[in-house]
């Protein structure tokens, strides 16, 4: 029932527009992060992982103990950022894009979780539980649920569900 209700709501163009803008903006953010990393000589996730003290610390320590795993995570992050960004901007396969983006954000969130530890004093803002990664995650969840690409985006042409 919920789906039907949403569908009806979203047929109203004025209500799709903010979602479309939101999706485009977050796609822009991901695409730029990916492209910037790709074009920065010597960029590596190694030190970011090494400094992590969150719940994934042991996983990250394991990753950085191997050159291969570091390379995989470096390419992995860049590729996921680029693909997610591109798909969100074009509105193509947006559910898939939202999922990959959400998975990535869970990793980012847990790398330096804003749980009120003293070590957060060096961060660029002050957060408790809810930080920017958290909000971005919620935004992608909304995109995943509402799928604005069916109205504004390539999904409209491909799914042809109207």
């Amino acid at each position, binding site marked *: 029932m919920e789906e039907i209700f949403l569908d009806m709501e979203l047929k109203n163009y004025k209500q799709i527009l903010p979602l479309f803008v939101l999706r485009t903006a977050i796609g822009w953010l991901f695409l730029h992060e990916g492209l910037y990393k790709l074009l920065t000589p010597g960029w590596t996730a190694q*030190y970011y992982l090494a400094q992590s003290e969150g719940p994934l610390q042991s996983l990250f320590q394991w990753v950085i103990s191997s050159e291969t795993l570091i390379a995989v995570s470096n390419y992995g992050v860049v590729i996921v950022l680029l693909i997610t960004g591109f798909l969100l901007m074009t509105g193509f396969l947006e559910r898939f894009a939202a999922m990959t983006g959400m998975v990535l954000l869970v990793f980012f969130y847990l790398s330096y979780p804003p749980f009120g530890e003293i070590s957060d004093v060096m961060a660029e803002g002050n957060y408790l539980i809810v930080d920017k990664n958290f909000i971005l995650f919620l935004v992608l969840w909304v995109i995943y649920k509402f799928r604005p690409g069916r109205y*504004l985006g390539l999904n409209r042409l491909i799914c042809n569900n109207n």
Partner: protein
Amino acid sequence: MERRDLLKGLAGIPFLGAYGYLFARKFTAENAKEATAFQKFIQSRIMPSQNTKAPSDATGKKLRLGIVGCGGRGRYLMKSLGFMTPGDIDRMSDRQRKIFLDQPDLNIEINGVCDLYKPRLEDAARAAANKDRKGTEGYNSSPVKQYGKFENLIASDDIDAVVIATSDHWHGPVAVAAANAGKHVYCEKALTHKIEDVFEVRDAVKANRIVFQLGHQNRQAENYKMAANVAQAGLLGNINLIETTTNRNSPNGAWVYDIPEDAGPHNVDWERFLRDTNTPFNKEHFFRWRLFWDYGTGLNGDLLTHEYDAINQMLKMGIPEIVTTTGGIYHWKDGREVPDVQQTVLEYPEKNFSLLYSASLASNMYRPKKLMGDEASLEIGGTLKLYVDSGSHLYEDYIKSEDIVPNEPIGLTKDYQAQVDAISSATEKYFASRGLLYTSQGGRIIDTAHLHLADWLNGVRTGAPVSCGIDEAFEEGITAMMATKAYREKRVVRWDGEKVW
């Protein structure tokens, strides 16, 4: 498909295009950004650092080495030469193992090892035989020859050169014996334990024309070479004060090493360990010799030497005219004789500067080296930072044009470690200095001790000068002995160009 569908379907494309355009513009602008006048000035004054590729000779005759002293440092040097026990190779993490296996082959063999503690000697003999860097699986070599007396190792026909990593009080005698036998020497710092030894080692090395390298691997670190360029290019003006430090705070850092339980008179050659004392067998003295004056010189030989040599590498200032040392045993009240907190001041009146060495073995507060000049100062840690003085004449124009802000750090080296980011997070992280174990060459991490040994082997093969040869070693040896003398005799110690008094 309706036209309306098409337009709505492609709604994201203009944004993608706009992004692409803006990104390309930003990227081109950043790449084409002109260096500021200040940057051009700095670049014009600093000679580009020469890429020190590890000299290797994979085709020539193999050099045949002997190792005297196979404790902690001896084992580390063997690793840097490419030799480890199969067990140690198994125990390494994947990453460490990769760095070790990637380390270039130095085209050497180790034909003999010498130590006074039997189990260590046996381990070293197994490591020396592990030419193919194998783990326990696949290792089937027979151990190399083991010596209890260094004289026999030196006299052996199948050894061309000797690596000395004994306790400090034996550096001198072993080095002199090796030089007199015409064997090349790589000797760990500190050069010696007695002032007379410093002269004897120098004379023996010069008389026999062997290639001598003192184990200050800082000579191979890229940021130290760059710091030398900066100082020598006059970018700091007249350097008048230098600050160097040691800060460690752990039992290991304070030389409280493990004592093997099985060790005893049956497997430790105590008589040979003593040089000119008559102390009864004492395990602590044997395994923690750095704590006692009979065998070591405390901070002076162990850590001041590194700091001193790093500055000597940059400024080539030689032996100080006046040395004072004060300090005490303020934390590690474990029966040691050597101080754990120490201040040594080296005065160079003719060169118009003081070098302050300040050390604590009970605080690991991070204090980088600082070269202070009347135009600018240089901070040498993991990266190099230049601080321009507000009253500087040399940089006056650049301060006026706001190219630079006085007393704000200006990074002179690229630090890829600082490029830490992730989406929506601009977290700044404090990166602890990792010491001098590794340097980076073309993005590859290389063990500086390996480079330093390679530099020595290259000198042996080709006659090329080494980076910390006997003249630099002599300066280090005299300076460290002056600091020890000043502390133990509680007085000002002087060097008149020929002798210490």
